[in-house]
């Protein structure tokens, strides 16, 4: 979340808007976005309608808690502590760049729960897209 907030201006400078979708209720989503000081659009998807529409999968045990995520999980725990998960614990995340015609220009389906998209790659894609204002 810190990295997303930190790179928000990079994405804006590349001509994009940013939105996040959470699995929480409206109230949980509002609290989460306030807690993390997110200044972009936050939407709630407690029924996972958008998660399913974008074909984001539920991870297996290895993807959520296997050896590939132990080190990243430990680092995250040491840095941020822990909190109660909201939503389906096996639901994986994802990232998409959508152009103004509604076409996907970048997709990221993670290999595991700590596999995050490269913000540099995303900015590279955004730089290729026409925008109405930069």
């Amino acid at each position: 979340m810190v990295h997303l907030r930190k790179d928000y201006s990079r994405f804006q400078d590349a001509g994009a808007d940013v939105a996040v979708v959470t699995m929480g209720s409206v109230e949980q989503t509002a609290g989460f976005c306030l807690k993390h000081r997110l200044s972009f659009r936050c939407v709630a998807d407690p029924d996972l309608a958008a998660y399913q529409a974008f074909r984001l999968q539920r991870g297996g045990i290895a993807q959520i808690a296997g050896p590939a995520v132990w080190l990243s999980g430990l680092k995250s725990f040491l840095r941020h502590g822990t909190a109660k998960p909201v939503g389906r614990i096996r639901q994986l995340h994802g990232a998409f760049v959508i152009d103004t015609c509604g076409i996907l220009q970048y997709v990221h389906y993670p290999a595991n729960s700590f596999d995050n998209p490269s913000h540099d790659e995303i900015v590279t894609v955004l730089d290729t897209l026409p925008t109405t204002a930069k």
Partner: protein
Amino acid sequence: MPLSIGDPAPDVELPDDDGDDVRLSSLWRHRPLLLFFLRHYG
């Protein structure tokens, strides 16, 4: 089957953090949209 580059993005209506309904397509109408789906904690 995951979506691919070049596919149309699904358009879903969801409530935002104020409780107002938002059609996802309204978010990419004027500028490209970077849409993150989160696994969030607390």
